C-alpha cells in the first residue's frame, strides 16, 4: 500500500457517476426510504454543521428528509437552523428536552441528548408519500467509549421509519440498518482505518461507506477505503446561523442517492430472476 495518500475531492472519484436527473426520481416508489448515518469522530469536523449541511442539501434536491442529531455538546443543529438561543440551548438546562424544527415544508430536524426521546414517525405528515431520507448524526470515538451504541442509532431510525418501508416485513419498533455511512474524522490514520472497519464496514457490509477527513494524514493504514476531503473553507461557515450550502454537501447527498439507487435496482433484478 502506498504511503502517499491524499484525500480526494468528490469530483475526483470517477467510478461513481452523476446524473442530471432530479434526485427525487432516483428513489423510485412512493415508499422509498433510505437511512444515512453521519458518524463524526472528534469535534473538529463539527457534527451539527455537517448534519445541517447534508439535510439542507437533501432538501434542496427535492427529497423529504428527517434529520436526527444525537448527543451532548454545542453547537447543535438548532443553532444552524437559527432557532432562538433559549430554544436550541434548552437541552443544556434539561437533558430530557428535545429540540425540533423544520428544514422546509417537507423536512424536519430533531436534536436530543437521549436517543430514547426520539418519537416515532407521525402518520399523516406532510408529503408522507414522498421518498424519504432519514439522516442520523452522532459522535463516535471509534472505540468502546461510545456514549451511544450503533444499535441505538439503528433503533432511532427504526422508530422514525415508516413500517412499510425497507426490505421485507418490519415491525414498527424494529431497528433500521443504514443504507449509507459517512465517517467524518480529523485525521485518517492507520489506527482510525482499522477502527472504521471494525465499527462500520464489517458490521454493515451493505451500507455505502465513505470517509471524510479534515486533514490529510499521509497514509491509508492499509485500508482501501475511499476518502474524501472535508473542505477547509467549511470552517468559514462555522459561526453563521444557517445551514451551509457548500457543494460538498450536495455531492454527498447526490452520490448517496445514486449509489443506493443503483444497488436497489441490482437487487430488484436479482429478485426478479
Amino acid at each position, binding site marked *: 500500500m502506498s504511503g502517499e495518500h491524499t484525500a480526494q475531492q468528490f469530483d475526483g472519484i470517477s467510478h461513481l457517476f452523476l446524473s442530471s436527473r432530479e434526485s427525487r426520481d432516483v428513489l423510485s416508489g412512493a415508499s422509498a426510504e433510505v437511512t444515512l448515518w453521519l458518524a463524526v469522530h472528534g469535534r473538529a469536523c463539527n457534527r451539527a454543521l455537517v448534519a445541517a449541511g447534508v439535510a439542507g442539501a437533501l432538501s434542496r434536491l427535492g427529497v423529504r428528509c428527517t434529520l436526527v442529531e444525537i448527543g451532548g455538546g454545542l453547537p447543535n443543529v438548532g443553532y444552524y437552523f437559527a432557532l432562538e438561543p*433559549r430554544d436550541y440551548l434548552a437541552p*443544556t438546562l434539561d437533558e430530557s428536552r428535545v429540540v425540533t424544527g423544520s428544514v422546509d415544508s417537507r423536512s424536519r430536524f430533531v436534536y436530543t441528548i437521549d436517543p430514547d426521546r426520539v418519537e416515532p414517525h407521525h402518520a399523516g405528515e406532510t408529503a408522507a408519500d414522498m421518498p424519504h431520507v432519514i439522516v442520523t448524526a452522532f459522535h463516535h470515538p471509534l472505540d468502546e467509549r461510545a456514549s451511544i451504541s450503533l444499535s441505538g442509532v439503528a433503533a432511532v431510525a427504526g422508530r422514525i421509519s415508516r413500517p412499510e418501508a425497507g426490505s421485507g416485513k418490519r415491525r414498527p419498533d424494529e431497528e433500521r440498518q443504514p443504507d449509507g455511512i459517512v465517517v467524518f474524522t480529523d485525521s485518517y490514520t492507520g489506527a482510525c482505518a482499522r477502527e472504521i472497519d471494525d465499527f462500520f464496514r464489517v458490521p454493515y457490509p451493505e451500507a455505502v461507506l465513505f470517509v471524510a477527513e479534515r486533514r490529510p494524514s499521509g497514509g491509508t493504514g492499509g485500508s482501501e477505503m475511499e476518502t474524501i476531503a472535508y473542505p*477547509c473553507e467549511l*470552517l468559514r461557515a462555522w459561526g453563521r446561523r444557517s445551514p451551509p450550502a457548500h457543494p460538498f454537501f450536495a455531492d454527498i447527498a447526490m452520490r448517496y442517492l445514486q449509489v443506493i439507487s443503483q444497488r436497489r435496482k441490482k437487487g430488484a433484478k436479482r429478485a426478479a430472476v
Partner: protein
Amino acid sequence: MQPSKDATRKLNVMAGRLADEPVRDLFTRFCREIALFSDSMTVVVTPFEVRYSDPQGFQVHVSPYRDLFRVSINPANPCDIRVSGEDGYVSALDLALKSFLDIHALAAGGAEPDPGNGSTTAPSMFRP
C-alpha cells in the same frame, strides 16, 4: 478536554461560593458546556475565576460571586455578562458559542457574513 480531578475539585469549591442552588447549578452547567466546545480546550482554575482557552484564541473567564457569576468572553475585547438566572445563562452561552465558532472561522481565513437571522439575544447593555 475533560478537566483534571484537581480542576474539578477546585471548580466545585468555586461553585460553592454561590449562595443560591439554582445559580450554582447554572454555573456548573455553563462550565461543563464551555469545556465541551473543543477537544483541545484548556481549563485553568485560579482562586477567583475559571479560565477556558483553546489554541485558536478563544477565551472565556467565569467568576462566581455570592448571588451571580460573571462571564467575560474574550477578555482582550471584553464582553461581560452577569448571570443570575436562565435568561443570563442563555445569553452568555449563546454569545460564548458564537465567539468560539467565529474565532475558528477567522482562523480558517475569515468568517462568512451572518445573514442576521437568529442573532444573539444578549441585552444591549452587556455588549462591549
